[in-house]
């Protein structure tokens, strides 16, 4: 059976990744060079997507923004997945009091609207790319933890785990060698969805001025300018948003495709 959503998703994300890696080669201009002679130019052959209020080439800025957005998405989700995997596995495997404690912690963390918590920490620690990765990562692991716990609860009663126990394997070995690899499927799906979510969070944060700081271009902070150029320069609003939309669409398609693949 062909898996259309998976293929299209991989195509989109692969394409974006290549662009992000080859950013200096792909972009026709330096993304931070100010050009007084071409302020707010509409899309043309010279500037594919136009220029912003400082005359910087929008296409180059979006291409370099891809590096930041994809990078933050990947690292943040890496952190979230690792934390969720560890806490979920421990809770599911040991059960009892430890399980109760960890799951209570998850419940409490879920009460905090993520965006408020992220904004508060970003304001207190000061906005930087590194901080955003950590903050987004540490506020979005709860879903993974619940997922892993559920998987492991059902896995640990299975025969191959009982067999492993009977030959005297250590708990750590059982968790790392047997339980986690068998539970990784759904985690992969949620991590893929998570990258889209993290990129969305980052763009919102940067849009509010508490994320990636100018002059470093990110899709969110390019959009800050669109508030003041509304009605004057539609391209500044439309293109960065399309970039975010396409990326998240790509990751969602991959997640959808993976789900289908595992279901069949």
């Amino acid at each position: 059976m062909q898996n259309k959503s998976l293929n299209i998703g991989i195509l989109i994300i692969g394409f974006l990744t290549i662009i992000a890696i080859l950013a200096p080669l792909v972009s026709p201009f330096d993304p931070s060079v100010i050009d007084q002679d071409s302020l707010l130019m509409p899309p043309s052959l010279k500037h594919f997507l136009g220029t912003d209020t400082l005359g910087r080439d929008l296409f180059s800025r979006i291409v370099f923004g891809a590096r930041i957005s994809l990078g933050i998405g990947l690292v943040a989700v890496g952190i979230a997945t690792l934390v969720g995997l560890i806490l979920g596995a421990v809770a599911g495997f040991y059960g009892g009091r430890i399980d109760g404690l960890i799951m209570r912690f998850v419940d409490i963390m879920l009460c905090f609207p993520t965006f408020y918590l992220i904004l508060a920490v970003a304001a207190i620690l000061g906005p930087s790319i590194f901080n955003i990765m950590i903050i987004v990562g540490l506020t979005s692991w709860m879903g993974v933890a619940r997922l892993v716990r559920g998987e492991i609860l059902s896995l640990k009663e299975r025969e191959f785990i009982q067999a492993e126990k009977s030959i005297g394997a250590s708990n750590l070995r059982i968790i790392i060698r047997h339980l986690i690899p068998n539970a990784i499927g759904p985690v992969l799906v949620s991590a893929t969805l998570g990258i889209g979510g993290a990129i969305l969070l980052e763009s919102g944060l940067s849009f509010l001025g508490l994320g990636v700081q100018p002059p470093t271009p990110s899709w969110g902070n390019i959009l800050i300018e669109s508030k003041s150029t509304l009605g004057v320069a539609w391209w500044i609003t439309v293109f960065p948003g399309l970039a975010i939309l396409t990326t998240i669409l790509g990751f969602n398609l991959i997640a959808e495709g993976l789900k289908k693949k595992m279901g069949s």
Partner: protein
Amino acid sequence: MITYIFRRLFGLLPMLFGITLISFMVIKLAPGKPVMLQYSLNPKISLDEIKRLEKIEGFDKPLYVQYFNWLGNLSRFNFGRSISDGRFVMDKIVERLPVTLSINILSLFLIFLIAVPWGVRSALKQGSTFDRVSTLVMFLLFAAPTFWLALLLMQLFCIQFGWLPISGITALDFEHFNWWQKVFDIGRHLFLPVLVSALAGFAGICRYMRSNMIEALQQPYIYTARAKGLSENKIIYKHALRNALLPIVTILGLSLPGLLGGSIIFESIFAIPGIGRLFYEAAMMRDINLIMAEIILVAVLTMLGNLIADVLYAYVDPRIRYKK
């Protein structure tokens, strides 16, 4: 039912404790001394003065003492004063809460009103052109950043067509309007914010409703209903729809944090004086007391939202009520 509600309320206490503990740790994350943070803009402050202020605010005591002092203040609803204008934080929040809550409740209402029939129609005509187009639209909507949609809609309705005002919740000459003009004016101002906030949750609920309805239609009781010879309308609306709607009650409760989180962005885009914009301003000014108070408030609102959703669920589905 009453015992169920009480049991759930009692279970909230440890959660409340955890929420305050985490919030407290977030404040303490701040590098440097908290007094320095508040007075760093004042060049006249001396080192002795800082020590004295630290003593007054209790920052020289061990952390756990500070935490319990702070908790004591919270239990009397005393969140301290705002750094920016010295007013009580609680007063500032209370005067802005109604705007945010009404926008969020209106948009929840709108989501429910449109997403449910839409999802049902999609499910009933599974595979039709309507279903396929709507699945595609939902997928796109799901991936679109809300604040970007807000900017696009603003460009379209406020600037291109000039139909709607661009920011705030009332016109400048609001005072001179008569009653129905006032209502009309607020409606015009709130239209886009409510729409944008609804769009954010719409795609999720709609897709969820569709899959719920499809699942409900395959249940054995539907075969029974068909076998009894019930009319198709009765089968769909009385048997399938009622069961498919059950989880939606919970989902609406769970979507509260997302909606409140979204408030921060769209309230600052549309310049709406609600708690989202208040929080944004507090974050920009590092107004610690205000930040903490809002985080706790929003977390408690979320907790209560979940509780109400669970109670409603128990109310509509007796199976939950009598479990255990």
